[in-house]
């Protein structure tokens, strides 16, 4: 999903096309005009298109229609009969002085903070581990397997284990922090109150950093060994190599990786839902749960839809802006 493909034909803006590709493409262009005009590409796309239409686009359109309706429990049995609400649902949602809008805004800000922290930390851990494990050493394979385990565990299993560990009275976390290290005067609450936010970030990072690790590991394998050899001959130490060669060469990966992580984390429902149940503590009232509450728990699907549409618009703008910024930055850098 993302992005580089948004319009980037094969080699992204500023990305280096693999050797020989240009030649091949030129050749293709000449050789395949006949087919290009044909229906084949459309037929190849057809299954994907049908599925997207059925499962994503039509429901999405229905969702947008819902957002303009007064769809409370009085009307859910027969949606057609639900009165049109015009922009009412949206007005309520964005009226930040009124309670509903205020709650939405708060939830939105919490989600932003959560996403920035979780993505940032996941990336940081991923990049650190990947760089430290770039050179072979004894036990590297085993470590890599251990690091990937959190990502491989099914979400429910992993998160329910965390909720077990985060219990106040009998959980491992307090056992270590309070009983063994004596860092806290009182056992801490991790699943309610303000600390719930911390818990959410930690659990989310635990689950996603292996993905960052994996992607960056893959990217590091693309850096030609000669570059390092050359710099070593120039007398550069390992830290300098990391700073001058490794990190800069990760820039194109980071662009994609951060965007992917951002979208996944921002819309994540599974982790907070399993960790906190249907109603999250105020401090960890993530937008996806908030919308779930606004529609399913309080039975106001019109309002929930309006919030979702707003969220979609926000994510579209952010993504577009992000792509524009990063690709412009990269063009400038490579120019």
């Amino acid at each position, binding site marked *: 999903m993302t992005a580089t493909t948004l319009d980037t034909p094969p080699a992204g803006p500023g990305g280096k096309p693999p050797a020989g590709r240009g030649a091949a493409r030129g050749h293709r262009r000449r050789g395949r005009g006949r*087919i290009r005009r*044909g*229906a*084949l590409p459309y*037929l*190849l796309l*057809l*299954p994907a298109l*049908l*599925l997207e239409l059925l499962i994503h686009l039509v429901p999405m359109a229905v969702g947008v229609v819902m957002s303009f309706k007064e769809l409370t*429990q*009085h009307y*859910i*049995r*027969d*949606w057609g009969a639900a009165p049109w609400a015009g922009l009412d649902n949206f007005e*309520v949602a964005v009226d930040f002085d*009124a*309670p*509903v809008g205020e*709650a939405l805004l708060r939830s939105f800000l919490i989600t932003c903070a959560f996403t920035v922290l979780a993505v940032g930390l996941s990336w940081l851990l991923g990049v650190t581990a990947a760089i430290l494990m770039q050179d072979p050493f004894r036990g590297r394979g085993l470590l890599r397997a251990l690091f990937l385990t959190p990502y491989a565990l099914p979400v429910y299993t992993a998160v329910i284990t965390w909720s077990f560990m985060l*219990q*106040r*009275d009998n959980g491992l976390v307090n056992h270590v922090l309070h009983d063994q290290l004596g860092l806290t005067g*009182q*056992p801490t*609450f991790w*699943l*309610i*109150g*303000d600390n719930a936010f911390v818990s959410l970030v930690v659990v989310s990072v635990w689950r996603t950093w292996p993905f960052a690790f994996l992607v960056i590991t893959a990217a590091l394998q693309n850096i030609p060994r000669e570059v390092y050899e050359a710099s070593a001959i120039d007398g550069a130490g390992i830290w300098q190599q990391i700073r001058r060669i490794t990190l800069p060469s990760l820039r194109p990966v980071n662009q994609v990786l951060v965007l992917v992580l951002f979208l996944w984390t921002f819309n994540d429902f599974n982790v907070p839902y399993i960790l906190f*149940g249907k*109603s999250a*503590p*105020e401090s960890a009232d993530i937008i996806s749960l908030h919308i779930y*509450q606004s529609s*399913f*728990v*309080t*039975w*106001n699907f019109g*309002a929930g839809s309006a919030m979702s549409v707003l969220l979609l618009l926000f994510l579209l703008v952010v993504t577009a802006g992000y792509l524009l910024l990063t690709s412009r930055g990269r063009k400038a850098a490579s120019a």
Partner: protein
Amino acid sequence: MRRIRLAATAALATALGLTAACGGGSSTGSEGGNDKPDELTYWASNQGTSLEHDKEVLTPEIEKFEKKTGIDVKLEVVPWDSLLDRILAATTSGQGPDVLNIGNTWSASLQASDGLLAWDDETLDRIGGRDRFVPSALAAAGAEGQDPAAVPLYSLSYALYYNKAMFAEAGIEEPPATWDDFVEIGKRLTGDGTYGVAVEGGNPVENSHHAFVFGKQHGADFFDAEGNPTFNTPEAVAAVKQYVDFLANDRIAAVGNAEYAQNQSVKDFATGKAGMLLWQAAGSSLKAHGMKPEEYGVAPVPMQSENPPEGRNVNSMVAGINIAVFKNSDNLDGAVDFVKFMTSTEEQKILNATYGSIPPVKEAQQDEAFSTTDLTVLREVLSTTSAPLPQVPDEAQFETLVGDAMKELFADAAAGDEVTTESVRERLTEAQQQMQN
């Protein structure tokens, strides 16, 4: 060109094949009626110790019905976590079960969504008539003045469970009858790692039930006559504060209770960590935790020492499960027959005895299975001092919003923040403002 067309056909065929292969299954649905008189789907709620236990209990009973009528009943026990979502989805789409259990507090909300068959007098007569049921239980099956959206199946009420040994040790002879006594006794029981009472502070639904009872005693109804929310009246604030204070100011509940949401409080009571528990029909759960019936006593939930001006003598909600017929059923007659079977005196005795609940059918209540000490108390409470939760369409929001507000208040108290009348009012006001009309 031919090759392309061939390829195109192949791709299309694959696409269609894929869709079909990934689809599969059969069965259709349509508007309600009697098109399929031979089959029924029944969504039971989780009443026993596990979903499998429920199946073991219900299957032999349902077989009796199948034998009698020749109707094939498909039973599914739906976990509480997903029951309401699935009912909502079923209502929206028209595709659902024929008969289903609902929490009786949802009755009015579901009634407003018009997905359930209304039990007018004629339909009620087909299952033996209105008079077979305990009036308070039937009152919890839909808004006042409208035909019930369901009929009661299992009834429950709250009671005060107390640990006899702990009471004896502290020299307490009688269970408390007033909240003043309750707090008094609670303080005497608290110390050395034990506490006076265990509360389920992280569970919004449980919280809202207590808010309701305390509310009644203080004279707060949480909804006015038009069904508009009145969550933050002074009476409501006093009610909520009194309950949260067990942990916040009286300190007779352990701080850790603030995050309890998986019935840990029952376990704490069963294992002697807390001396009292406010719960509905805890018998089977306590037994599962290894507490014998002779080890605990059951008494009605305390009242105020002196009722505030508007206060009423209510010490429990009418708790329970209702059974309803889905309007879009293809076997409406069979569905009503099934409800008749489930509410028959004999089945009522068997099922309620198994689940430790009280039959809402008067005739079945006479059975001695329901005359044990604890069930006698529950029965007494149900028939004299219980009241149904507000039967308004927005009831579900009340449970969520007020229950959540209380959860946050418990969290505040646990974090060491003071809980004052002002902070309670703030939380409740916030909750009320989330209601959209």
